[in-house]
């Protein structure tokens, strides 16, 4: 298939996935803000949200003070924020538009329909009817587009590049969520456990639809290292990084070409390390450092995929 087509498919999927993850992160904070907590804690939580996406600088430049309403407006609607939900859904739609002939009509209509509906939302509506409903909507539109993708697309290269985009983006986003929350919730020296933590950790799990999963898998108290294990290493957990890398690797194998061997090797290496990794080792060496290295390797894979497949070379 055309390199440019693959590029649009890949980014369509990445932006849709990103919109979903931002909605998830915002939703958690939104829920937390309804629980008793100090102003400082609230502020930290919104600050962390910005840090997850690496948008602190941009936010402070345009908004100054931290406030729930401002962060929501910035992360959902802001035209200047390339990662606002609105811009992500628009970018997903623009990419789909550019290759609409490659998509099934259902997938195109879903993506286009999501964007058309997004245009109707206003900050006032979020304030009135509750932002939670909006975040649900984003999540479900993303579920829908994924379902339509899997349910209607021929299992050829097009689907592979869409899936690559989805899982690379998700790996990146899950890693960021884990990292920031982990630092925020577990300041150095503090002991694990405690009642105050419960809400925080369960909120983190909920943000990646893993609360029930956690209960099912561990049937025990929520502890930070198990949360980290679940999100990093459990291959059966659909939003874990191990799962994402497994998908990245297999989709990469399916589209392999003459010059993609090294990219494939690196993806396979990372996948194996996650598959065989032990959480105790990771925690002992420092989770933050581990995640930082992980993020840079995920980014490296993204760059290499672009070079090998997406950027036109003659």
């Amino acid at each position, binding site marked *: *298939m*055309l*390199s*440019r*087509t*693959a590029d649009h498919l890949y980014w369509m999927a990445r932006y849709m996935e990103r919109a979903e993850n931002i909605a998830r992160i915002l939703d958690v904070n939104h829920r937390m803000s309804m629980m008793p907590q100090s102003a400082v804690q609230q502020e930290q939580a919104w600050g962390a949200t910005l840090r997850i996406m690496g948008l602190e600088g941009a936010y402070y430049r345009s908004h100054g003070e931290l406030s729930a309403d401002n962060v929501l407006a910035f992360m959902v609607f802001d035209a200047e924020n390339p990662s606002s939900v609105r811009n992500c859904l628009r970018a997903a739609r*623009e990419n789909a*538009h*550019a*290759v*609409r*002939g*490659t998509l099934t*009509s259902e997938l*195109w*209509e879903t993506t*286009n*329909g999501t964007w*058309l509906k997004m245009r109707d939302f206003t900050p006032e509506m979020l304030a009135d009817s509750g932002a939670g409903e909006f975040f649900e909507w984003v999540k479900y539109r993303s579920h829908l587009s994924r379902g339509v993708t899997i349910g209607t697309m021929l299992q050829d*290269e097009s689907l592979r*590049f869409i899936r690559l985009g989805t899982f690379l983006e998700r790996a990146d986003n899950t890693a960021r969520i884990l990292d920031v929350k982990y630092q925020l919730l577990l300041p150095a020296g503090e002991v694990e456990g405690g009642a105050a933590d419960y809400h925080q950790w369960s909120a983190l799990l909920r943000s990646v639809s893993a609360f029930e999963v956690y209960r099912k898998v561990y049937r025990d108290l929520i502890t930070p290292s198990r949360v980290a294990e679940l999100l990093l290493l459990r291959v059966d957990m659909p939003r874990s990084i191990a799962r994402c890398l497994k998908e990245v690797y297999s989709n990469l194998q399916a*589209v392999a*070409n*003459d010059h993609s061997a090294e990219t494939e090797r690196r993806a396979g290496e990372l996948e194996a390390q996650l598959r065989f990794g032990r959480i105790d080792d990771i925690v002992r060496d420092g989770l933050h450092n581990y995640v930082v290295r992980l993020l840079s390797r995920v980014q490296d894979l993204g760059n290499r995929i672009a070079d090998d*497949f*997406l950027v*036109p*070379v*003659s």
Partner: protein
Amino acid sequence: MSNKTFYNEMIDEAGRVRPHYASFASWLSEMPEERISQKRAEADALFHRHGITFAVYGENAGTERLIPFDIVPRIIPADEWAMLQAGLRQRVKALNLFIHDVYHDQNILKAGRIPAEQVLNNAQYRKEMQGVDVARDLYAHIAGVDIVRAGKGEYYVLEDNLRVPSGVSYMLENRKMMMRLFPRLFSRYRVAPVDRYPDILLNTLRSVAPTGVADPTVVVMTPGAYNSAYFEHAFLAQQMGVELVEGQDMFVQDDQVFMRTTRGPQRVDVIYRRIDDDFLDPTAFRKDSVLGVPGLLQAYRAGRVTLSNAIGTGVADDKSIYPYVPDMVRFYLDEEPILHNVPTYMCRKADDLAYVLDNLAKLVVKEVHGAGGYGMLVGPAATKAEVEAFRQILVAHPERYIAQPTLALSTCPTFVDAGIAPRHIDLRPFVLSGEEVQLVAGGLTRVALREGSLVVNSSQGGGTKDTWVLEA
């Protein structure tokens, strides 16, 4: 101008419903008004959701608008279509022969049937094409011929679009929409299907591949997602199951065209290009074009790739050449033309110019190279000041204009804000020339939605209708 001077497709002079509309009229009268408005709203919503839109130039960049769709179909009886079809085949055959002739032996010029300087000095005549042989000697593989009905219902050819005619996707989508909205209506009529068009198009394109290519790779070439007709480009590529490429996706090596794919370069044999000659190849035509492919012309001249339509077809659909088309039919086919031209005054001729200047308020004056309804004067609809302003332009550059009598274009009942009212329509059937000359029974009917307006172009507020050709 009173309404009864126009031929109404549905109602005859005595106010009776014409036989081929009878069943539709009774169906319509049974439909409650709310139901109709509900269906019309549904159509709009569906077109939006499907993204069947066109980009508007000049307004906010990136704006997409719907082309208004009217639910009253334009119905063509079988015998009328049989005549149109024969006439269109004949006309497009002659046009292809003409294009081949003017780039080779120029017999028609030597015979004095068309003034040589009119062809050879025409801006649309491409010297690069002289002596170049193209597959099957065919140039206009896809032709969109605009036909109007006037007077007591006679058909006239208004213009031959032989460069990159658009609109066929609306022919197909309008039919789908009608079938979705009013499935029962189709049990009352035997409407000839149009959905084979993409198949026939693909076959046509494959049949004009460079000689010796066994399994040709066909692509659709678009200027990009912001082009006004992008929807159609994507639609046709998808329906044919071929790649939709932009200039940047292709390159030329050793006179062979390749596209950049995820598995490396892949050879391209036939390019259905939806982009003007000028933008095809920055090394040969417009240097500032970023849409084209450097070296494409060279590969084309070497016979290694087919461009569809060929370069240089514009010389045959130019408004200054149009008056000679009936003569082409006689000259090349030795037949009498089945379809008539609209009488045309060529302002470059002194006699004609004098007549035009005397009768400006009655005439339609068009730019010879214009398209899309821009830069024209519709005398009867213009103010005195507009007519006078145009007179100045005409005197300064008579050679740029032709004039035609204001045709009393036929009307078809159409839903407007005030209810159902007659609105002027035209018809664009699509003629495909490859191994054989083929067309599906139908076309795009455009309708001028403003009361009294004769301009049907979508860029000027025109809408579309489903076009039904009845089976005999």
